[in-house]
């Protein structure tokens, strides 16, 4: 069930929050040995919370569409009294004394927290093959990665365990697992959703956002995370007639898996059939944006985890390498990267006078296999991490909103993601476009497992 289906069923008294929560906990017990999507499960507190939410509804207290809905937090999100590991051995026993703002907001919206999801260590990677808590597996093919770093959240939603989980995105960490797992993920405008109480990775590129099964659920969860939980946040309009959708003629379609390219182009045709106007555009130098993004993240992540480097033996090999690389970045180079960033933000923003949103593939390929470090993309062999992030990393540098939705499947049955980019604070518009594509393609009805 989706958030909105649960909301309707709860108000029609067809189901209680406690029943939904018990069902979710049963699914976790059944699926987690296979998927390893959860680090912590909160059976007792979830049942108590669900009962309290049922009592409120029975007394006429209605907090909005997330009232009584089971959710999970990425285990990077501080939860008061509940351990928050960051996917790290060093923090395996860390118990915060306060909630993150997004946890407070979802709590106020009436959500029922059932667990904390597994992730790439410190959220610093795209595989979610965690050396301390085990690899998260993709529900569509358990030999494959779910993507990362919010891999547990993506896998849990894709498997139908729950309708929503939180994610964080510093270089694609919401949108990559959304693409690989066939779910919806929104990286909002930089700074729009509070980061307070979420373990940082890159101070100036971290974004918080929801991962859901559907775009309409994503709209509801996005507003709840931001602190507005009222019923009127439901996305009603999916009319995209007259909208100008930008289709990049450079970079984004240059090196892609053929099936990904075909699916995304079909989504573009779908948008045109729904009345949108497709506009060819030339995007600024995305390779340059990605280089700036890598410089910034290397330096910032090492700043965040500098103290943890004293325990090198307790850090996974891939993350340790990145943290060491960050130690080698000069201060003046970091500042110059931030100067370049300002120039590129201004260059890219000029596109918004030509188009309302931009369609790109989310990832160049479907999900790679667990343990795979190189992959073939068209005629080129690429590093899995660099290939998987190259259509997304630059968007974190720009800070603009980006939505990843499923737009098709490969012949082997793996999901394919479409990325929809918008101008700063254009979340409502890109969600509207996403909902229109979702309605027209009926991709979401297909189930993993």
């Amino acid at each position: 069930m989706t958030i909105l289906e649960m909301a309707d069923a709860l108000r029609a008294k067809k189901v209680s929050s406690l029943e939904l929560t018990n069902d979710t906990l049963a699914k976790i017990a059944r699926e987690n040995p296979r998927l390893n999507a959860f680090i912590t499960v909160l059976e007792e507190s979830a049942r108590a919370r669900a009962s309290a939410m049922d009592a409120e509804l029975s007394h006429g207290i209605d907090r909005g569409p997330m009232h009584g809905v089971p959710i999970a937090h990425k285990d990077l999100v501080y939860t008061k009294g509940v351990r928050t590991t960051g996917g790290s051995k060093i923090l395996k026993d860390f118990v915060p004394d306060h909630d993150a703002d997004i946890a407070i907001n979802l709590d106020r919206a009436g959500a029922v927290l059932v667990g904390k999801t597994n992730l790439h260590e410190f959220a610093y990677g795209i595989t979610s093959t965690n050396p301390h808590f085990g690899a998260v597996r993709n529900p569509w093919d358990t030999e494959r990665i779910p993507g990362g770093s919010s891999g547990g959240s993506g896998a849990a939603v894709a498997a139908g365990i729950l309708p929503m989980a939180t994610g964080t995105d510093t270089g694609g960490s919401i949108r990559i697992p959304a693409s690989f797992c066939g779910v919806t993920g929104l990286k909002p405008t930089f700074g729009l959703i509070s980061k307070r109480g979420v373990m940082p990775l890159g101070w100036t590129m971290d974004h918080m956002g929801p991962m859901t099964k559907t775009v309409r659920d994503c709209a509801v969860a996005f507003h709840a995370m931001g602190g507005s939980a009222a019923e009127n946040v439901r996305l009603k309009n999916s009319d995209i007639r007259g909208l100008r959708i930008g289709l990049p003629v450079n970079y984004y379609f240059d090196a892609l898996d053929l099936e990904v390219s075909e699916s995304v182009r079909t989504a573009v045709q779908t948008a045109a059939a729904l009345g949108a106007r497709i506009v060819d555009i030339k995007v600024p130098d995305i390779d340059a944006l990605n280089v700036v993004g890598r410089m910034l993240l290397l330096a910032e992540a090492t700043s965040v985890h500098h103290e943890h480097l004293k325990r090198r033996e307790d850090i996974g090999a891939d993350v340790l390498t990145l943290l060491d690389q960050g130690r080698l970045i000069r201060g003046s180079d970091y500042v110059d990267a931030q100067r370049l960033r300002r120039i590129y933000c201004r260059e890219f923003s000029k596109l918004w006078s030509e188009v309302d949103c931009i369609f790109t593939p989310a990832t160049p390929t479907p999900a790679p296999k667990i343990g795979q470090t190189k992959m073939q993309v068209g005629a080129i062999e690429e590093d899995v991490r660099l290939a998987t992030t190259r259509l997304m990393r630059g968007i974190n540098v720009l800070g603009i909103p980006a939505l990843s939705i499923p737009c098709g499947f490969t012949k082997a049955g793996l999901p394919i993601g479409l990325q929809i980019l918008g101008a700063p604070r254009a979340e409502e518009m890109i969600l509207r476009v996403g909902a229109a594509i979702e309605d027209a393609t009926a991709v979401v009805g297909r189930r993993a497992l």
Partner: protein
Amino acid sequence: MTDWKKTAAALDPPIPEPDVEKLLPVMEALENAFRPLQRTLTPESDVWTGPEDVG
């Protein structure tokens, strides 16, 4: 170009030598990509300062 081995050895504490070898190709490639971009900066190029620069 930067002598990454020397830089790694000069850090306090230094990056252990076997680990440095793993970093070299990535750092060299990153520097090769970054320096030409850096050369486009002018004295007027100001620093990104936060959400107001997002637009």
